């Protein structure tokens, strides 16, 4: 009995001491965080909401892997957070007379993270590998192939002269990889990336974290932040709590519902900028209703963009009247679409053959980017006599129906520009892109095709601006799609972290960061 009581007491003491030690460690680390102001930190905990599928730049096409690959790799041309282009791994470049060839003169002092020196072979391989990949069509459609001229000169041959090509070359998908290592294990490269960027890959613990470390031999000099840990946090609310607590230092795209909370927090700085994206109503021009221009016009007049913005993004957005995003070259600032007019919408619906209204289905998916504006659209269509039932689908099923099977009439969609030039809408609106691109509206208009072709090939900026204004006119007149709004893309970071800047295409470079 006495022995049992003694054992009990010892066990209790052990448990209490372990708890005290653990909590003490937590308090110490909290103290260390709070002492960040007095001793400059060199580590960074980055919260990403989602996990990359791969870190192979030519095999991915979304922001989550890009936030990591932007640190591990470099490009020939650098597109910074100040939205300007500058030399990267290429010291300089020049164009042929017909602007169908670009000759890049490579830097000679660049090393990969494994010590290999970057050569023209690596550059040629990386570009041709990206061109062959199905993930990169939005940025490589103009490219034919890259060829080595000598150890430090590469020529990129284009299919046609292409104005935005420099933005494309600066895309994360055209990052330069190590040819020798890649060819030895193409499938494994995405899990053990080797680049020339300011941060080298250290470890990837599936579902938990990705660790990077400053590359001391980086050609521009090592970054001030030495250790980066990407913490994979799939729940947005948890990520915000972790940021407030100091467990992470920065979140890329925190949930919009926490916006005011983060703005009001004195320890956090909230950055935001307009995203280079449009949210719009996609119309299937092969559907019975989609073919009916009066129906399309009726829906266009039924849209109250201000209410849409209030309901869909809590007022944090601006109306858009064009098919291209605002930050793109060629966007006509003063262009207006059809204004909200319920009576006109009802009249047009009657002329379309539905004087008593009609029932339609609105397909959407679980992401708030899609279902929130869909709910507002449902409400707005009701006012003109269209009873819309919402079918909320799982993402895969939604994409299958909308993008592949094209089994829809109208649906709210969103599209982010891969580069800040209006040519990006070519793959959405040109009739040749119905099967080969992203023209899931099945839209075919010879006049629009002609304009898009001209805009693509011209090098005269003034001429191109006129062309894209005309493109907006055609899209408006024919109601190819109905633009709705653009919203803000945010970053939330601890206030002591400097060098952070929101970017319309969510580019972020930890190399620019430092602790106060």
């Amino acid at each position, binding site marked *: 009995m006495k022995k049992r009581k003694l054992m009990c007491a010892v066990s209790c003491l052990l448990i209490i001491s372990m708890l005290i030690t653990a909590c003490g460690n937590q308090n110490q680390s909290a103290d260390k965080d709070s002492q960040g102001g007095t001793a400059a930190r060199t580590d960074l905990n980055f919260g990403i909401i989602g996990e990359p599928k791969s870190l192979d730049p030519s095999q991915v096409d979304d922001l989550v892997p890009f936030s990591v690959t932007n640190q591990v790799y470099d490009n020939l041309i650098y597109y910074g957070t100040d939205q300007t282009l500058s030399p990267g791994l290429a010291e300089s470049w020049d164009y042929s007379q017909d602007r169908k060839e670009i000759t890049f003169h490579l830097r000679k002092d660049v090393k990969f993270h494994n010590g290999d020196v970057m050569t023209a072979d690596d550059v040629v391989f990386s570009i041709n590998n990206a061109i062959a990949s199905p993930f990169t069509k939005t940025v490589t459609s103009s490219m034919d192939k890259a060829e080595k001229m000598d150890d430090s000169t590469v020529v990129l041959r284009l299919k046609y002269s292409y104005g935005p090509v420099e933005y494309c070359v600066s895309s994360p998908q055209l990052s330069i990889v190590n040819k020798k290592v890649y060819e030895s294990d193409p*499938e494994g490269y995405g899990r053990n990336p080797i680049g020339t960027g300011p941060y080298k890959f250290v470890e990837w*613990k599936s*579902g938990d974290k990705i660790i990077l470390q400053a590359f001391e031999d980086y050609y521009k000099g090592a970054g001030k932040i030495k250790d980066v840990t990407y913490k994979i946090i799939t729940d947005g609310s*948890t990520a915000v709590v972790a940021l407030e*607590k100091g467990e992470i230092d920065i979140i890329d795209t925190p949930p919009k519902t926490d916006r005011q909370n983060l703005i009001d927090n004195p320890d956090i700085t909230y950055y935001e900028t307009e995203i280079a994206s449009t949210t719009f109503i996609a119309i299937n021009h092969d559907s019975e209703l989609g073919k009916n221009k009066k129906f399309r016009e009726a829906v266009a007049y039924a849209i109250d963009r201000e209410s849409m913005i209030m309901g869909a993004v809590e007022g944090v957005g601006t109306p858009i009247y064009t098919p291209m995003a605002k930050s793109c070259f060629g966007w006509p600032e003063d262009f207006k679409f059809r204004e909200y007019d319920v009576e006109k919408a009802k009249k047009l619906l009657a002329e379309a053959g539905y004087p008593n209204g009609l029932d339609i289905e609105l397909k959407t998916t679980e992401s708030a980017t899609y279902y929130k504006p869909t709910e507002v659209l449902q409400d707005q269509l009701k006012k003109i006599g269209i009873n819309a039932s919402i079918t909320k689908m799982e993402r895969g099923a939604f*994409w299958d129906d909308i993008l592949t099977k094209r089994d829809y009439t109208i649906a709210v969609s969103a599209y982010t520009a891969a580069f800040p030039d209006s040519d990006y809408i070519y793959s959405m609106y040109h009739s040749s892109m119905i099967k080969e691109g992203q023209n899931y509206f099945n839209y075919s208009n010879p006049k629009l095709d002609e304009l898009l072709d001209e805009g693509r090939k011209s090098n005269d900026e003034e001429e191109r601006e006129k062309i894209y204004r005309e493109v907006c006119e055609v899209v408006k007149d024919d109601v190819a799609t109905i633009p709705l709004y653009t919203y803000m893309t945010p970053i939330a970071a601890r206030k002591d972290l400097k060098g952070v800047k929101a970017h319309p295409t969510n580019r972020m470079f930890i190399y620019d960061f430092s602790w106060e």
Partner: protein
Amino acid sequence: MIKYILKRILLMIPVILGISFIVFLIMSFTPGDPARLILGEKASISDVENLREKMGLNDNFFVRYLRYVKDAVFYRDFGTSYATKIPVNADLMDRFPETLKLAFGSTLIMVLIGVPVGIISAVKQYSLIDKVTLGISLILTSMPVFWLGLMLILLFSLKLGWLPATGADTWVNFILPCFSLAASMMASLIRMTRSSMLEVIRQDYIRTARAKGAKEVTVIYKHALRNALLPIITIIGLNFGGLLGGTMIVESVFALPGVGTLTINSIRMKDTPMVMASVLFVAILAGIVNLIVDILYAYVDPRIKSQYAKN
């Protein structure tokens, strides 16, 4: 007993095959295209079609299923993930230890609190303690796990700063998630322990033990509890087996890299090899846990042991 165990293991084989067929069927015929999900929304129809062809997704369902079974049985190759292109075993084995920690931790908390509280509730039936414990267990079981988890994070992580909100670095990271899970499962254990104990403490042999002057603690813990254990072990076993499948909600809320989130994300990506591997792995584990529970029955109740031996 050994024969019984071997028989149970052999019986698992058709069960696992049946599960593999059903899961493969569901993954093959539910909406969503893995090729589209891999390539993303900006991919063209022709790119998606080419990838489908390359992945063999256009082959007949039975051809694909039999190919999977052949590779799994004869080459122990469960495939590579469509999404990450790494062998499914690698990812699963990376994640499973975290799920195991979560399962063990939650079960331990559930047992350490649930069983004694159930016993006290039974012994002090209809008293204030009994009513309070039943009330608290009802409240705990009514709270959605994700809500409870977030509330615990807000209190213990953000306000008090005692415990971390996210991650799986040390055992401390598992305290809040384990409590969240244990709280939701505890009610059933408390009630089962209580009703099982009540049934036993009314038996004649308990009255005899008391009449013979045995201490109350001995009567309750040595005589009553032992005889009340069977349903308690069942509940614990069922809950533990379920936890081994991963708990996606808690893993998401606390950013724990477990099997639950892996399975759900794989289902969303229509990543059939990963889903098959996860589900089959969990099914096998559940079968093993059920077998262990049945063996424990034999050790708790000698009558059951002799039944196994006869069969």
